[in-house]
């Protein structure tokens, strides 16, 4: 049984359909990425999944039970972390966490909060006012908040937005650790394709409120069969040029001794071999395979 299952979920704002009959599921221990350009419907979907925006159609099921009929029971077993929500700035980190621990009816809250603060390396901030924290520190406090009730699934809305690369990397490592330790399910939205590729088992592309792709990151990148081969060589440009013409390849010279060839990925070994046997010495090779970002751009521009 999936932890979260959505069927034909729809949200309309007047005549505008923000989320158009989408269906997907998140299994136990799975990290699912929700991707899409701005306005694709990601945040609206997350808001409906948390109950702060009402749906117009379809169903949301947590742990096999309808969310709208078992809202409190579901919310007790899920949690959320978003870069766009903060905690109460006027009170301290620990006070904020004590409030949420009480809301989730957590027993032995002080011990759990102290352990999590240590685990996230911010025990020294326990008595600091929340509004005085940096973005990275706030992200970690928000993550602690999202773990207080030992949730089975966390909905994360761009949790690393506005973090510098080092802190973002540490945050992702923490998320990976948490997933493996607790068999946690995560629904993760981000604009950062490298992050998605790194941590997600499955990726859902939303565009204009519809799911346009739903697959593993590896399979999604295979949708783009071409790769770019960049060769730097010594010797005459004309021999390479005529060889590539003869093979019917698309190419362009970026300098006198550098050529970029767009080709089917499967043809690259053959092209490399051929180019090195037409009388030129190849001095540098660079192969750029398609990434999730390429898939994203292709879908967004389609």
């Amino acid at each position: 049984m999936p932890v979260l299952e959505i069927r034909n979920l729809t949200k309309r704002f007047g005549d505008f359909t923000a989320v158009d009959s989408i269906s997907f599921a998140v299994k136990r221990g799975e990290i699912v990425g929700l991707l899409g350009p701005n306005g694709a419907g990601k945040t609206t979907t997350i808001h409906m999944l948390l109950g702060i925006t009402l749906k117009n159609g379809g169903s949301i099921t947590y742990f096999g039970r309808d969310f709208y009929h078992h809202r409190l029971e579901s919310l007790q077993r899920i949690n959320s972390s978003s870069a766009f929500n903060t905690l109460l700035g006027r009170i301290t980190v620990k006070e904020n966490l004590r409030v949420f621990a009480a809301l989730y009816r957590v027993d032995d809250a002080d011990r759990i909060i102290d352990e999590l603060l240590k685990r996230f390396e911010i025990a020294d901030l326990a008595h600091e006012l929340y509004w005085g924290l940096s973005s990275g520190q706030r992200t970690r406090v928000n993550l602690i908040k999202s773990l207080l009730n030992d949730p089975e699934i966390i909905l994360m809305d761009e949790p690393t937005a506005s973090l510098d690369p080092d802190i973002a990397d540490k945050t992702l490592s923490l998320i990976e650790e948490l997933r493996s330790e607790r068999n946690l399910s995560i629904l993760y939205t981000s604009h950062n394709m490298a992050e998605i590729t790194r941590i997600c088992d499955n990726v859902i592309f939303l565009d204009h409120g519809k799911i346009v792709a739903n697959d593993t990151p590896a399979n999604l990148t295979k949708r783009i069969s071409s790769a770019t081969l960049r060769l730097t060589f010594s010797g005459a440009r004309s021999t390479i040029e005529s060889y590539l013409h003869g093979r019917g390849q698309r190419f362009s010279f970026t300098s006198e001794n550098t050529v970029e060839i767009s080709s089917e990925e499967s043809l690259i070994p053959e092209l490399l071999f051929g180019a090195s046997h037409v009388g030129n010495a190849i001095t540098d090779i660079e192969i750029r395979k398609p990434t999730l970002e390429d898939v994203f751009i292709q879908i967004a521009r389609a």
Partner: protein
Amino acid sequence: MNVRRIYAVLLQEVFLTVHSLEVIMDVFLFPTVNIVIFGLLAVYLSGTETSETPKFFFLGMLLWQVVGITSYSVAVGSMWNIWSRNLSNMFIAPLRVSEYVSALFLSGCAKAIMLLALGMGLSAWLFDFNVLEVGFPALALAFVIFAFFGFALAILTIGIIFRFGTRLAALSWSLPWLFQPLSAAFFPISALPHAMQLIAKALAPTYAFEMVRYSLAFHSIRWDFLGWGLALDFLYCIVFTVAFQYLYERSRDSGQFAKNES
């Protein structure tokens, strides 16, 4: 309703009050200054007036604070969470709206009781007026009417803010004061112009003030005033709670609830 979740929101209120100079000033300092000003005015008038009028002035200001503070606590308490972009966090926890507003109301009542005690102490010490001359039962019953009226106004206010956005935030601290001159706080309802009397008769605090003034003058409770006050409170609480529920649902349906924090 779950007691632990109500306790959680109360805990947040305590932390917020302790850390926020604005809350301390709004809830304790400014009302205390008003109480002292009206106390001094009452002392001055008592040299020129032979009736109970100076005491009425003072009681009007002191007791109106109950409406102001209970309303402030529920409405501005919610605004603190919106301003901090924390309201969504609260409502994606397993918290019922009824638990949330009940906790804020309890917090408001506690603050109002503290302020009343302070005002009564200052009154006895500085102005030689024992507010308990009104009689404890009459004061307690008037407190109930004022507190629930403040709650009713607040629940309507936060419903409007949830639905139409924080550009209407000023309602959360200003709305109760619009009703002060209409509630015959400082003078009998008969002193109001006729048109205003009609409005005053539809407001629960009017009857509470009339009851308190009567109790001060005659040392007994006018049960008809009490009945009208409680009945109108009940009506306002029901109507405004239904209105709040409608506005809250519309806010979630239109996406405004989530947008309030963006």
